[in-house]
């Protein structure tokens, strides 16, 4: 199956939040009780029941202000730290469509992914004892549909297509608006790309990571300590069996003393 990319053109976002509602609609996520925080951003943060959120940033720009609306959801990394950190096989999987999918049936609620994710996307629910995040509507794209957020977007800010097509489109659009493609990092590729308008520093926006990378602790743990531990455990068990076969059973009280002859 082809890999897909979701392209988010921030020069076209009007902050209408159709994607946010469409996400809740498709994934049957309940509404949250929220209050006014001084911003149009509502709810204030992603959660177990909010997988997609429009973030509103007000950035001083000399005498004026840049008002940035940003569609924030899972970035669907090519080498996802959440999948690497996940100890439960099948709970977090990167599929061949490029979507990183969580499966609540296998999730054990250990929260390793929430600590590993460079974008702080997976959210834990203490009630459900599981995590949840955007799945890039894996069940829709395998049916030949676009993700719910892309289908709903009225301005053409969100577009979805095959990887090659979207990469060239992103470069062309970034050149057109003199912006940058984020995160277009050869060391950390994602299946969700932003076109940041010019004069916007990614680091100034809330909830972004200008230099996303796999946490080093995860690499040490998963690539070194875990295999060595498994080898060590196997070696101990093997040695115990070998000892049994070569030396025979261990006598708790030592060899019985022979009774001396009369």
């Amino acid at each position, binding site marked *: 199956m082809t890999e897909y990319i979701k392209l988010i053109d921030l020069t076209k976002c009007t902050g*209408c*939040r*159709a994607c*946010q*509602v*469409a996400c*809740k*609609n*498709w994934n049957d996520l309940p509404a949250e009780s929220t209050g006014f925080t001084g911003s149009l951003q509502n709810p204030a943060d992603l959660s177990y029941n909010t997988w997609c959120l429009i973030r509103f940033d007000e950035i001083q720009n000399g005498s004026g202000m840049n008002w940035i609306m940003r569609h924030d959801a899972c970035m669907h990394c090519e080498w996802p730290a959440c999948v690497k950190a996940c100890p439960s*096989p*099948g709970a977090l*999987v990167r*599929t*061949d469509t490029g979507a990183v*999918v969580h*499966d609540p049936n296998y999730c054990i609620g250990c929260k390793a992914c929430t600590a590993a994710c460079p974008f702080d996307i997976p959210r834990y629910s203490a009630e459900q004892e599981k995590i949840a995040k955007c799945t890039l509507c*894996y*069940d*829709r794209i*395998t*049916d030949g*549909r676009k993700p*719910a957020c892309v*289908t*709903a*977007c*009225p*301005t053409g800010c969100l577009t979805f297509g095959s990887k090659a097509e979207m990469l060239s489109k992103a470069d062309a659009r970034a050149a057109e608006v003199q912006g940058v493609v984020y995160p277009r990092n050869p060391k950390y590729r994602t299946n969700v790309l932003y076109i940041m308008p010019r004069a916007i520093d990614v680091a100034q926006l809330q909830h972004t990571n200008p230099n996303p990378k796999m946490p080093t602790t995860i690499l040490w743990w998963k690539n070194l300590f*875990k*295999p060595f531990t*498994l*080898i060590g*455990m*196997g070696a*101990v*068990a*093997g040695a*115990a*069996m070998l000892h*049994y076969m070569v030396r025979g*059973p*261990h006598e708790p009280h030592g060899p019985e003393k022979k009774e001396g002859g009369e």
Partner: protein
Amino acid sequence: MNVSRRGFLKLAGGTLAAAGIGASVGVKSAHARPSKIRYAREVPTVCPYCAVGCGIIAHVSNGKVINTEGDPDHPINRGSLCSKGSALYQIPNNDKRLSKVLYRAPGSDRWEVKSWDWALDKIARNIKDARDKGFVRTNAKGQVVNRVENIASLGGAGLDNEEVYSLVKFKRALGLVYLEHQARI
């Protein structure tokens, strides 16, 4: 079952070895979940909210609306929707939706539950009485006009093309001249 110390060690060693092999084999692809609308019937409809009149597909399964989304083939919205239209699913699936006819008599302060038959008869009676009272056969110049001036009709964006056509036919037949629609743009 009696497990000796040695038996336990052997068992544990075997289990650990098996666990090690199991942990080294990762899952490569997720079990493809069929989408909830794969086998649903698609019913095209029009968004009831504003005057734009976006096309919406309602996915129906077992007589229930299970999903709504923008109609990609609709010339007005081409599949996109605003945040309000995206939430249309909760109109048919809502505990607070009225399921009975409620009637408040003139001057009354409470709602009464009535049957559909009663309500339709009541509406027909009121239209007939009002039309009989306000029917104008000729105008001041003596020209035949055959019009009803004391009933007005107000349509809404929830009406689609065909419904509006038949409603206007019906109202013109009654002689109405005050025909208005919320979606006048």
